[in-house]
C-alpha cells in the first residue's frame, strides 16, 4: 500500500527526517507511529500526505511514485488525513462541510461515517460552535469520506481524555477493519497505540528505530532506552 524509501525532510539546517525506510501495514491494520517530541512523526505524515516536500527519498503509494504529486491528487486517489490541530471549516455547519467533501469525492454513503463518528446530533451546528471533542470527530469524519484506502491520522487524541482517545481508536479500528482501509496513526498516548494498533513504528531524532508488533516494541531495549522508559 505505502512504501517509504530513504525519506529525508529538512527545515533549513534541521534534519527532521533522515533516510527513513518504512513499509506500512496492509488493509484493515492500524499502524501506529510513536516517538519522543521532535522524532519526526508529524513530519513523516506531512511528507506522505504532500503537505511538505521531502528533500530526498521516495514515497510509493499503490506501486506508484507519488513524491511530487499534489495534496489534492493524493486525496482523490484515496489517501486521506486528519490533523493534530483540528483542521475543519469553522463557519460551515457540519452538514455543509461533509456534503461538500462528499460531493467532491463522489461518496453517496456518508451516513455511516456520520453514524460511526456519532455526528447525527450536530449536523446543523456551525463547526466552530461545537465542543472540541466533537470537532475532532468532524476532522476524522472529513478524512473518512470518499472511502479512502489509506488514512493518515496525526494525533487524533490531541485534546481528548485518555478514555476518549481509546474509544476513538476503537471506533477507527472498527471502521478500518470493516472497510479494509490501511491506517497510520501518530499518537503520544502510548497505551492507546499498544492497545489498538497491529503494528507499531518508533522514530527517534528523525531516524527509524524499530517496527514490529506491540509486544515486540514494548520489549525492544532500544525503544525502552530512547522513548518508553518506565512506561514499558
Amino acid at each position, binding site marked *: 500500500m505505502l512504501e517509504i524509501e530513504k525519506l529525508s525532510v529538512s527545515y533549513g539546517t534541521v534534519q527532521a527526517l533522515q533516510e527513513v525506510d518504512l513499509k506500512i501495514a496492509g488493509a484493515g491494520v492500524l499502524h501506529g507511529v510513536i516517538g519522543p517530541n521532535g522524532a519526526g512523526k508529524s513530519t513523516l505524515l506531512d511528507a506522505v500526505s504532500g503537505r511538505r516536500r521531502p528533500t530526498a527519498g521516495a514515497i510509493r503509494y499503490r506501486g506508484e511514485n507519488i513524491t511530487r504529486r499534489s495534496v489534492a491528487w493524493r486525496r482523490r486517489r484515496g489517501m486521506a*488525513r486528519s490533523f493534530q490541530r483540528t*483542521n475543519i*471549516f469553522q463557519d*460551515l455547519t457540519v*452538514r*455543509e462541510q461533509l456534503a461538500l467533501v462528499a460531493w467532491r469525492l463522489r461518496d453517496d454513503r*456518508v451516513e455511516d461515517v456520520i453514524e460511526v463518528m*456519532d455526528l447525527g446530533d450536530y449536523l446543523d451546528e456551525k463547526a466552530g460552535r461545537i465542543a472540541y471533542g466533537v470537532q475532532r470527530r468532524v476532522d476524522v469524519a472529513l478524512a473518512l469520506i470518499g472511502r479512502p484506502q489509506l488514512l493518515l491520522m496525526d494525533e487524533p487524541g490531541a485534546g481528548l481524555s485518555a478514555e476518549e482517545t481509546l474509544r476513538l481508536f476503537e471506533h477507527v479500528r472498527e471502521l478500518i477493519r470493516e472497510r479494509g482501509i490501511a491506517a497510520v496513526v501518530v499518537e503520544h498516548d502510548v497505551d492507546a497505540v499498544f492497545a489498538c494498533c497491529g503494528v507499531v513504528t518508533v522514530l527517534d531524532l528523525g531516524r527509524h528505530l524499530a517496527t514490529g508488533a506491540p509486544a515486540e516494541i514494548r520489549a525492544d531495549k532500544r525503544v525502552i532506552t530512547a522513548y518508553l522508559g518506565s512506561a514499558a
Partner: protein
Amino acid sequence: MNGEAAARVPVQRDALRAPTARAGWRIGAGAAALLAFGVGAVAPQYVASDFILKLADGGLLLGILALAIAFLMSQTGLVTIGAASVYGGVGYFFAIGMTEWDLSPLAAIAVSMVVVILYAAALGALIIRTTPLAFMMLTLAAGEMISHAVLLEGLRDYTSGADGLVVSFQGTLFGLESGDFTNAARFWAIVWTAAWVAGLAAWGVRRSRFGAVLRATRQNEERMRFSGFDTYAPRLAAFVFVNVIAGACGLLHVLNSGFVSPESLGLGVSTNALVAALIGGTATSAGPLVGGLIFAFAQDEFGARGFTQLLTGIAIVLFIVVFPGGVVGALDAFVRGMFRKRQQESD
C-alpha cells in the same frame, strides 16, 4: 465519544440533504421579487425628476461595480482595487473597436468583453495565489499601469490621451438606440435591469456548489486541498467572473455618458466602488447595489454643502462603525432575528 457504538443513533440516508424552504414560501418570494423588479423599472420614470434619475443611474452603475468587488471579497476574501481598469478599459476598447476597426456596436462589445476575459484570466493566473494584501496591491498596480497606458504618446492616436474619446453608435443595439442610453429616464430601466441580472447572477453563484467551494476555500484552503479540491481554478474563475461584471458595467457607463476618459480608469472609481460595497454590505447581492445608490446621493448632498471630501470621510467612518455588515447586512440580521424570535415564541 458520547457513548458506545451500540448506543449510536442510526443516521437516515440523505442525512446530508439540507432542509429547503417550503414551495409556497419560494413562490411568494419569487412573485414579490418580480413585482419589485417591474415596479422599480417603471415607477421612478414617472415620479422622479431627470436630475434624480441621473443620480440614481450613476449610483446603480457604481453599485454594479461595487457588487463585483463585494462578491470577490465575500466569496474569496480578496479585495481588488483595480476594478476601474476594467470598468474604464472596456469603454476604450468599445470606442476604438467602432471608430478604428469599423466594428458594429455588437461586435465591439464582444471584442471588448473577450479582451476583459483574457486580461482577467492572465492577471488572475499571476496574482490569485498571493496573499490577500499582495493581491490587493497587485490589482492596484495593474490598474494604475492601465490608466497610465491610455495616456502614452504612442497610443494617443487611439486613446486621444487626456482628452478621452466620444462614444456613440449608429443604428440599434439590442433593439435600443443611442439616445435610449443617454436619456436619464430611459437609461434607468436599462441599468435597473442590468443590476437585477448582475445581482441574480451573483446570488445564483453564491448559492451554487461553486460558491460553496469558494467560501470553504476562503475559510480553510489547506483542508480543501486535503479534501481533494483544486483551490486555484475556482478562485481564478471567480476573478474572471467579477471582471466580466465590471466590464459589462463599464460598457453601460460608456453608453450612458457617451464618453470615456482616463478618469473612468482611475483609482477614485475603484475606491468609490469599494466604499459603496462596504456601506451596503458585501455579504449579499443587494448590499453593494444599495450602497452605490446611497453613495451617489450622499456625494451630491455633500457636494451641495461644499464639503464633499470631509463629509464623505465622516459618513464612511460612521457607516462602517455603526453597520459593520453594511446597511443591508444590518437589515438582514434584524429581520432574521425577528423571525427567530417569533419562531422561538411559537415553539
